[in-house]
């Protein structure tokens, strides 16, 4: 059995699934922001009984804790030690008011160009401490190619400033090239570490009290899970887990097999996701949160400000839906007309007070010289067309992503969805109409109300690593796993792929993982008309997906 708990903006949904992934029990509780751990624990308590707690294999949490901390500007003051070397103006890296530029530099092939000086580091850290800052992030340009300067600074701090307990190194957070994103990610990760660790220990204490011993996982932005222990160092990975849970819910409930558009029609927004084959696709660069562009890998998801509770008004003689929400639909006691009221009026949904819906729509109908039913139809059509426009924009953008090889430029990899699946309140009525407009097959799964929690419960552990090898410099490294090894000239792409897979596999321990090589490139190094070595880049990944039964 497994538990999935999704902590949403207003409610927390919990599900209990049996060993065949069938829903046994579910509940919905109000979210208590000031005490998320309590909300989670009471959801656990209500879903399970003393007798079945021992049969529980795992518990997966999708939490908004870190997202909210970041959006509210919470978390702790973080000092940044940056080693930018030459390049962009370092004043642009203005993430933290406590920033010290350390002179040192690594080049694009991971060669040390300039050493760091211990004195500078000590001075910077002492200054942070004087200002009451004792969380530190260390970020070097090209540290993913050579992390030695970040590691050296960490050692200097540990040897001289035992009071600093919380240090994040940028190369451990992402193996990708993008220095500003790595700084942002390091900065955010360092700042939220302490509240996150408190949350984790609260949960652990609470679960112990419930005698719940199953391993606990946190859902990440990429739709995979990470064990609680690993989550301690990587709180930033749990941002955006709400949309990720919804996408994994769609995946779990509908098992897409072809190119599929996923829609989660909520109260204020509609979230659009995409599946190619059986896999959700990723954001090309990383997640943006509260204007911070990060390197956190996330599932592709675009929001549009129209949902079941969006405010409907007339502006300049035209119907306008959203992006504001004034409250729930009039049919449910809300203050203003919404798309849901149009559905209620047209008898397309069983719930809600039709009289209230009618009363809210009538004044608008009059203004537009329409009958109420004409207006209701018009609202639904407009609702669909706004989503359709957004979908078309998304596809155009995705289909024009930059490529760097002639082969890719000339190969037609156009993403063209053939199927539409939807969850969320109005999905049952909206999805068929939208599918008709887009000329797609469609599906609206059962249990769509608790899709997010089901998605969390069934998600498997994901992990990515990048291997960069340079045979003329006789080394390879995998920054995320902290691995650097010497190699000989015989090292080649096949070896690199094998090593990346093996290392990722041993890092995942008890998961029988499907590791895929998602990117591989080699370049011959030509110097003076001779090949002097090879640069090899490999990315290995456990992609998000449904966990296999009986595995973690």
């Amino acid at each position, binding site marked *: 059995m497994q538990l999935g708990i999704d902590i949403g903006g207003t409610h927390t949904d919990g599900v209990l699934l049996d060993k065949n992934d069938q829903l046994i029990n579910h509940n919905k509780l109000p979210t208590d922001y000031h005490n998320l751990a309590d909300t989670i624990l009471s959801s656990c308590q209500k879903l399970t009984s003393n007798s079945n707690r021992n049969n529980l294999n795992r518990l997966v949490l999708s939490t908004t804790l870190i997202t909210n901390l970041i959006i509210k500007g919470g978390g702790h003051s973080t000092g940044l030690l940056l080693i930018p070397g*030459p390049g962009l103006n370092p004043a*642009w890296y203005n993430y933290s008011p406590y920033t010290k530029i350390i002179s040192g530099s690594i080049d*694009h092939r991971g060669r040390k160009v300039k050493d760091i000086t211990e004195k500078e580091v000590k001075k910077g850290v002492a200054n942070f401490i004087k200002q009451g800052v004792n969380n530190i992030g260390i970020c070097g340009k090209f540290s993913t190619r050579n992390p030695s300067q970040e590691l050296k600074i960490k050692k200097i701090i540990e040897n001289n400033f035992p009071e600093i307990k919380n240090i994040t190194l940028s190369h451990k957070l992402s193996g990708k090239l993008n220095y500003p994103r790595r*700084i*942002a990610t390091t900065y955010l990760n360092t700042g939220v570490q302490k509240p996150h660790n408190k949350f984790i220990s609260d949960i652990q204490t609470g679960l112990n009290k419930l005698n719940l011993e199953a391993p606990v996982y946190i859902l990440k932005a990429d739709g995979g899970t990470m064990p609680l222990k690993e989550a301690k160092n990587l709180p930033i990975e749990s941002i955006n887990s709400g949309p990720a849970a919804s996408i994994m819910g769609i995946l779990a409930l509908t098992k897409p097999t072809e190119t599929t558009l996923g829609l989660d029609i909520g109260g204020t927004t509609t979230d659009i996701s995409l599946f190619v084959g059986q896999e959700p696709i990723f954001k090309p660069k990383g997640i943006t949160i509260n204007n911070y562009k990060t390197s956190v890998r996330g599932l592709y998801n675009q929001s549009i400000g129209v949902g079941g509770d969006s405010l409907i008004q007339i502006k300049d003689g035209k119907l306008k839906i959203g992006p504001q929400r004034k409250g729930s639909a009039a049919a449910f006691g809300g203050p203003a007309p919404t798309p849901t009221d149009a559905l209620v009026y047209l008898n397309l949904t069983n719930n809600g007070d039709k009289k209230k819906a009618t009363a809210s729509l009538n004044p608008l109908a009059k203004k537009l010289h329409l009958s109420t039913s004409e207006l209701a139809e018009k609202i639904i059509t407009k609702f669909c067309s706004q989503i359709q426009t957004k979908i078309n924009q998304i596809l155009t953008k995705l289909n024009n992503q930059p490529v760097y090889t*002639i082969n890719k430029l000339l190969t037609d990899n156009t993403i063209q969805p053939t199927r539409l699946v939807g969850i969320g309140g109005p999905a049952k009525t909206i999805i068929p109409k939208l599918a008709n407009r887009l000329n797609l097959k469609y599906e609206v799964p059962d249990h769509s109300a608790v899709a997010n929690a089901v998605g969390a419960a069934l998600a498997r552990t994901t992990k990515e690593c990048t291997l960069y090898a340079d045979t003329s410099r006789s080394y390879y490294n995998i920054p995320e796993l902290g691995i650097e090894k010497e190699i000989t000239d015989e090292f080649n792409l096949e070896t690199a792929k094998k090593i990346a897979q093996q290392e990722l596999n041993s890092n995942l321990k008890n998961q029988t993982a499907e590791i895929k090589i998602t990117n591989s490139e080699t370049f011959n190094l*030509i110097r003076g008309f001779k090949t002097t070595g090879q640069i090899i880049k490999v990315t290995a990944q456990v992609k998000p997906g449904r966990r296999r039964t009986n595995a973690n």
Partner: protein
Amino acid sequence: MQIKAKNNLGLVFFPAFDWSISPTHPERKERLLYTKDQVLEEGLLDIEGIEEYNPLVATIDDVNRTHICIPDTESIISKPHLISAGGAIKAAELVMQQEVDKAFAIIRPPGHHAFRIVYGARGFCTVNNEAIMVEYLRQKYGSDLKIAFVDTDAHHADGTQNIYYNDPNVLHISIHQDGRTLFPGTGFTDDLGGPGAFGRTINLPLPTNTTDQGLHYALDNLILPILDDFDPDLIINAAGQDNHYSDPLTQMKITAQGYAELNEKLDPDLAILQGGYSIESALPYINTGIMLAMAGLDYSYIKEPDYNSKIVKQSTKITDIIKKRVDKLLSSWKKRDEIDIQAKFNTQDYYTTQHNIFYDTAQIRENQQIKIKICPDCSGLMIIDSRAVPLSIGETRNIILPFDVCNECRQLGYNKYEISKSDFNYIYLQDKKEDKLLTNH
């Protein structure tokens, strides 16, 4: 990092990682690898106002509008060339459609050594990307567009010069390492353009070991004043990067800062990558510098790992040579419209000349006999009889009708085309105005 570009900049970045002339050629797969790594690591593509685009694929018609490929276009060029040219076209379209303020096409292979007539590759170039781009623009947006090229590659832009030598609406300025010390061995101050566009070709050969000082002296005292006079609709920087002090093929001493500052002052609408073979020590820094400069952002922190401030100092001897050449060119520019063309070219009807062209990459030697009609009503009908060894196709005749062709030259051209059919197995007529290429086979 919440930085916004002052100028919206479009990047057509296409390193063609799966293509090279031959496995160990300097123009190789790896050439833009380190530039890509640097650009990604710096996070340049996250700067608001800097946007990346895929190249278009140019068509055979786009090539035929600019070149005469012998025996035919299909047998000489391949997809990589069409994509590189398409990258330049995409960059230009972004600017013309006002989607961006400026665009930089970082494409390979380069183009500036490709002449109008093409038998194969020379100087790593087969077709002239920037000329294909300009001819596309003139066809689409009007042939009265005034275009200025400033070619800053270390090698003389002999191909682009050749294509625009007699074109009055195109100013072609090339600054390069002195042809006496470097391929292709041309580009001296006396080449000033044909009878139809006299003065609109400008060559400034720079002595070996010229530094940023010399480059910027020429920019401030020659190039910028001439551009002010000419007042072009579009300025194109043919941005070669082989002037860099670490380039293995040349003997110049320009730094990444020197290149960036050049682009800030020149303020080009378009930059198109040319050569540059110091792929690790120079290209990542120069390209980053050019991008920042074009976007109107601070580039002062860009420095090569081995940068030393002494490198910009240049001997007074070099400074003096450059000053002398700049003065000479400036005075001939000022007098360009006072020249008596018939007297200058020593003829009343046809200006005739000849040209030997060596294709170093394809190992072909070509001889051209060129005739340009001196015409009061247009820039003049051009007839090029060309023979290439060791090719076995014999002498070819190439008739070119310019964009501004007058009726008389047009008639004459078509008549020549018909009557030459009995004498030539291969005869071509490129009609710029009608946008077509005729051939007898």
